[in-house]
């Protein structure tokens, strides 16, 4: 009866550890080593195996905790910058309005993403929104191109939209973000890409656990003039006196370029904050998960240990009783 119970115990412990499709070497070695034990049904898996597993899970927990702390400190550094830059795009939206539904021939979608992974789902969200915008703005005579900032979006978009990718920039966060760098980048993009409307897709940082996918639209000077004549949100633009510069179109050109660089600066800062925040919560849930796994493994370890002690005792006692009787 005790033997049957032990056999059942052994199979119960071994069952979660025997994976029909072992993925990593640790698991496959576990499977092979304890399969012979459970077939006998007498001795269950050795405590060594469980101890090794616990050690690796504990290391993973330490690593993810450290990554969370690093992300938290990086977030603190960049959050004040992002908050301070929020006033930068508001005058442009106040002047030129917000026109995401504008109908133009040449759309360029600027997707901002991170270079490193392990940051939750924000990059996938940005890519989904970019694809959605692409679909929304596709049509006869209309073309829609991508400009990608960051490795992660590039990896995802290259798979199905390779011919639509105009430019890709990576390794933007090697140095802390500052306006000069973004201005140079914006200049690069504006020089190399023909556009009527630029749609910037990024994750706005609302709080440490909330990131809202957002899209800002920057129109080219010709489209601004066209929309101003057509009326609607930009209709009041004609009532503004244009001072400085030589002609109205030059000033509008400078205005568009300035708007693009300001909006890009804010978008990149917000996305960087969102990345760090998402990494914090991803690493936090990973550490918690590792902690749970460690608890379960500790229970398994104790059960295994007690089972092996009981087995030894039974052997001794049955040996002794066999000698007597």
């Amino acid at each position, binding site marked *: 009866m005790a033997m049957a119970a032990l056999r059942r115990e052994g199979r119960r412990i071994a069952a979660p550890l025997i994976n029909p499709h072992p993925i990593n070497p640790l698991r496959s070695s576990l499977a092979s080593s304890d399969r012979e034990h459970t077939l006998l049904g007498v001795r269950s898996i050795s405590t060594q195996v469980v101890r090794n597993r616990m050690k690796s899970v504990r290391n993973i927990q330490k690593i993810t905790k450290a990554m969370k702390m690093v992300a938290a400190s990086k977030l603190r550094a960049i959050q004040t910058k992002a908050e301070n830059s929020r*006033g930068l795009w508001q005058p442009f939206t*106040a002047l030129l309005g917000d026109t995401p539904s504008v109908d133009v021939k040449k759309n360029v979608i600027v997707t901002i993403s991170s270079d490193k992974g392990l940051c939750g789902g924000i990059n996938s969200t940005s890519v989904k929104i970019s694809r959605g915008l692409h679909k929304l703005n596709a049509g006869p005579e209309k073309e829609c191109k991508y400009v990608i900032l960051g490795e992660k979006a590039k990896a995802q978009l290259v798979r199905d939209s390779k011919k639509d990718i105009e430019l890709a920039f990576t390794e933007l966060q090697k140095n802390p973000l500052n306006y000069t760098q973004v201005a140079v980048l914006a200049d690069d993009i504006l020089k190399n890409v023909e556009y009527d409307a630029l749609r910037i897709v990024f994750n706005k940082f609302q709080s440490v656990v909330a990131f809202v996918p957002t899209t800002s639209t920057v129109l080219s000077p010709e489209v601004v003039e066209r929309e101003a004549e057509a009326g609607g949100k930009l209709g009041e633009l004609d009532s503004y006196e244009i001072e400085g510069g030589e002609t109205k179109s030059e000033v509008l050109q400078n205005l568009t370029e*300035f708007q693009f660089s300001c909006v890009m600066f804010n978008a990149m800062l917000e996305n960087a904050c969102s990345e760090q925040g998402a990494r914090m919560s991803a690493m936090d849930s990973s550490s918690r998960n590792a902690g749970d796994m460690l608890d379960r493994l500790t229970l398994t370890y104790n059960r295994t240990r007690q089972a092996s002690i009981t087995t030894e005792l039974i052997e001794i006692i049955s040996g002794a009783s066999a000698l007597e009787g």
Partner: protein
Amino acid sequence: MLRQAPRFLLRRASAAAMRWSRPFSTDLPAETAGDSKFVDAWKKLIPNIDPPKTPSAYMAPRPPTPSTIPSKLTVNLVLPYDSVLSAKEVDMVIVPAATGQMGVLPGHVATITELKPGILSVHEGNDITKYFLSGGFAFVHANSIADIIAIEATPVDRIDQNLVQKGLAEFQQKLHSASTDVEKAEAQIGIDVYSALNAALTG
């Protein structure tokens, strides 16, 4: 795990409370009717994903043009890394427009102007605050709100005379030794900025 849950919730709640006790002054969740066309078009084509938000959702709508001229001008001076003045009520501002110093009073006609490096002076009653701007744009709206967007703005008393002289000499040297158009343009920009700084200190 259940034991840790209340501790975890408390930690999250306190973190959230810490965040929300400092509301973002430039963030206001106001949904405007202008994006409804975009939202509808999105929902028709891509029903499974929520449409992205647009900047107007994060901005308080500006007040309409009043019928009488208001007594004060509302000024916003923003830089990439800071909002120096936000919604400050003043009597007058003098901006360094590309065509010369331009004074803006409440009720000024709506204007878009490029700025060149120079001094911005903000007049509030009897106080005059002067900032040296490196350039940018200024919008004056019909509702007596002035938005000034510059790359750098420093109070004039923080500028060092010696460094200005040195910088001016250096860029003049660069202009003489410049060979390509790009170098000449860069040197010229440097000279413009430093001469404006010089004028700011002396004038």
